[in-house]
């Protein structure tokens, strides 16, 4: 009897197993895009453009980490863009009064606190993540304008530049930070109780709670991280521009969600990975960069990225229904 039940499905071959992983298919897509772009523009594969690509990935990449955590629990955070804008203004104002490190601390703590509020409203009071973060998005942007007095804060101390323009072993510090962050987030999601709980919460919250997992804490935590990472991301932006504008981070939530989704995460939760998100970020940045190199009007970028997202998901749906059935 047992033998019969077990043999209903033969174990998949290793190659099929690898092909079954969405991230692998998305990696192939990313490589395909890279090959196409390098054929279209000889400048694409030069060393300086590759560093340029990585540099452009930092801000969106950091925000996408928090977004991955949120989406893994089955939630969504629409407020990251305006939280980035607001915490950027908070950072700019703090820098007028305190040194760089405590100022960044204040901004990151403010981002985390906003996430804590969203997460609590969603988890404890049972409100829909979409609605709560939509509200926070409106509040955040409005407060950013009020705190800044509707103008950019431009007297940022030059010391901030050190955050970006320091090379460690030949790698720019912001790119290095991104790599370390992704490794740490991957390790956390894979090897710790909290990481596994986040997957379990997104996959089946009721079962996770019945097994004794702390579903409340680990449903709130991703929103806290998402808010805090939005502040970290905007810190890198400000240190490059040496200016904090209340408009900063506009539309960032869409880029982050797109990156996570292209990376294979399910918006219903439980499925997704840091590796996938990284590829999603790179695909987005490559398309932007490639179109710029080819001199296409920047207004076409939205069309290109939107098409890629929809096509990727469409192909994914068609392929995965064949692989898993």
């Amino acid at each position, binding site marked *: 009897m*047992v033998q019969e039940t077990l043999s209903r499905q033969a174990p998949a071959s290793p190659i099929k197993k690898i092909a079954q992983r969405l991230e692998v298919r998305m990696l192939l897509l990313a490589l395909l895009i890279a090959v196409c772009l390098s054929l279209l523009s000889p400048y694409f594969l030069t060393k300086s453009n590759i560093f340029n690509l990585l540099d452009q990935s930092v801000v969106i990449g950091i925000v996408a980490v928090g977004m991955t955590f949120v989406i893994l629990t089955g939630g969504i955070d629409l407020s990251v863009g305006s939280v980035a804008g607001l915490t950027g203004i908070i950072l700019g104002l703090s820098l007028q009064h305190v040194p760089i490190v405590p100022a960044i601390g204040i901004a990151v703590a403010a981002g985390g606190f906003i996430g804590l509020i969203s997460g609590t409203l969603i988890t404890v009071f049972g409100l829909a993540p979409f609605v709560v973060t939509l509200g926070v998005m409106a509040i955040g942007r409005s407060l950013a304008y009020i705190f800044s007095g509707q103008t950019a804060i431009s007297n940022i101390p030059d010391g901030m530049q050190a955050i970006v323009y320091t090379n460690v072993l030949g790698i720019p510090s912001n790119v290095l930070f991104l790599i370390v962050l992704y490794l740490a987030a991957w390790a956390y999601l894979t090897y710790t109780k909290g990481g596994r709980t986040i997957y379990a919460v997104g996959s089946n919250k009721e*079962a996770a709670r019945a*097994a004794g997992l702390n579903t409340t804490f680990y449903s709130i935590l991703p929103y806290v991280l998402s808010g805090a990472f939005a502040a970290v991301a905007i810190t890198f932006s400000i240190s490059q521009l040496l200016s904090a504008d209340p408009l900063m981070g506009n539309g960032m939530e869409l880029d982050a969600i797109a990156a996570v989704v292209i990376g294979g995460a399910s918006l219903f939760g439980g499925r997704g990975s840091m590796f996938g998100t990284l590829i999603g970020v790179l695909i987005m940045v490559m398309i932007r960069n490639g179109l710029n190199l080819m001199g296409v009007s920047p207004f076409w970028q939205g069309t290109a990225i939107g098409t890629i997202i929809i096509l990727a998901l469409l192909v994914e749906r068609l392929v995965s229904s064949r692989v898993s059935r």
Partner: protein
Amino acid sequence: MQPNLAPVAEADVSPLLVARGITKTFDRTRALQGADFELREGEVHGLLGANGAGKSTLSKVISGHYTLDSGDLSYRGHEIRLRSTRDALRIGIAIVMQETSLVPDLTVLENIFLPELGRPGRLDYNQFRKRGQEILNDLGQGDSLPFDWEVRRLSSAQKQLVEIAKALGVRAKLLIFDEPTASLSPGEAERLFDIMARLRDTGHGLVFVSHRLEEVFAITDRVTVLREGRTVMNARETASLSQADLIRAMVGAELGAIYERKEAHIQQIDAPVALEVRNLSSTPAVRDVSFSVRKGEILGIGGLVGAGRSETVEAIFGLRPRTGGEVVLNGKSLRGDSPQTSIRAGLGFVAEDRRTQNIVPDLSVKENLLLAHLGAHRGFFCSYASRERKVKELLAGLGMPEDRLMDASMLNFSGGMQQKIIIARWLLLEPKVLILDEPTKGVDIGTRASIYTMLRDIAAQGVALVVVSSDFEELLGLSDRVVVMSDGRTTADLPSAMLDEESLTLLAAPRTSMVRNTEMLNELARAHDGAGFWGLIEGDRLICLNAVASNPALDPGFKAGEARELAATRIPEALRRREPVFVAEPDGERTTLVVPMTSPRGHDLGWVGLSLPTDRPLPAPETIKSRIDTMAATL
């Protein structure tokens, strides 16, 4: 015609519906693999089978909920293909399910004519009211439904009547009743049978899905039995069959010993109490629940659907807030504010619904197995390695090769294997008490026996088991002792050896019927200053269903929910003789009338007794008997 059909008595009865070679597969479970079925006009046809035999699937194929994979369906001689319930309704096929198709916030009338709401044009409520009244009159239930009430305020029996009226509102000719008596008291079930008989007499074809054999004999004309998705007994006349025939067909000869248990286990266990529940409440579903379970004991919790069994165990485990009472686990009070504290205290809980409450589909089999470990574990990392030895041991016990652990999804396994992995998830933590809610739901009958064996082995290792089940047969076969719940209260706590399915059904009757019975007993006792009781008598034992004493001196020596040897009560003589006269006890203290209570359809509902003092003139036994019969008619 099929060769294995029983000889047709009247050749002119044309089949209303014929199903041949129906197959239906869900994911990897073959629910139906070649089922045949034939229904005539003007008959009640019993569709039987053990849980998981495919009777519900077949009903839903006929009613258009599922589309069949292969096979033929013909209705009134025409081949039909049903793509939806709407298709089925249009040609006159309706299914009466457990409250699922009603809209609780709409009124009774709107629910009956719900299909009309989808049509264009104005709604004519007066017309609805007139037609609704006609339908109810035809059913002989003229005044039993308040048309303007919202459906949420109705009892389960009334909701069912709405479902039936709704089917007749679209002039359905074929009605399927899927386990219609699961939440009804015996009296309500009888009323349903009256309605079904009327429908049969007006030429409707009725399918009656059930696993309660006595009901099948009471109402059906012919019977079809399914086993593991196949028809094993095709349209036999009910009158030509015995209970044993049906059981053999349902279970299959080789599985007769499915509930086989060690004799030693039936004996009273003197082990220490592992879990004690005192006056637990969690409003509204749980009102007053008390029981205890000893180490190594299997305790069953039984009751009808909606009695509050699942809610009780959830409140014990901490998944549902408590509003009162106390739970003591191994001598320590268990707060029950979260599953985590309960798990760390040594409690395990296999929730009722495997798919929504137990399995985490995106985690691998290994992580699913280790999920409760993760919940109980203190620390930053997963520490899966610390359980490696125990995991290996459990896998060997389950007969599962180790490499299957890395399978990405548990959903590729059969229901039985999934359930074993979920049970193993808790065994890994070596719990002191393990609660299982419907442990064999959706598990095919072959694998059930191995789950029962697994549970008995767990109990034999000293774990206290609490098993909640709607399947009375399973409850009696598996557990050492059964606690019965009704309307959120424990109503009985008896060794399972003393119970059978019928006595369980009566003990589990909804509180409403108990209230009526209590009223009558109270009136009788008060009018004559005596004591009354209602109970079942089997051999030399009495199971008391209800007892009231207006005169404390006449207390019969047992309380509701208790079982006693007849000789151990204070009225042994009357209970032994059970004659239609007052019987005085030898000690001369009291005299007792014990009369049988039967429903209007002749169904045995046990015995009602009235004890009176001997020093007063006695009332005529006939008047008492007629009061009892009147009450039985409304039970």
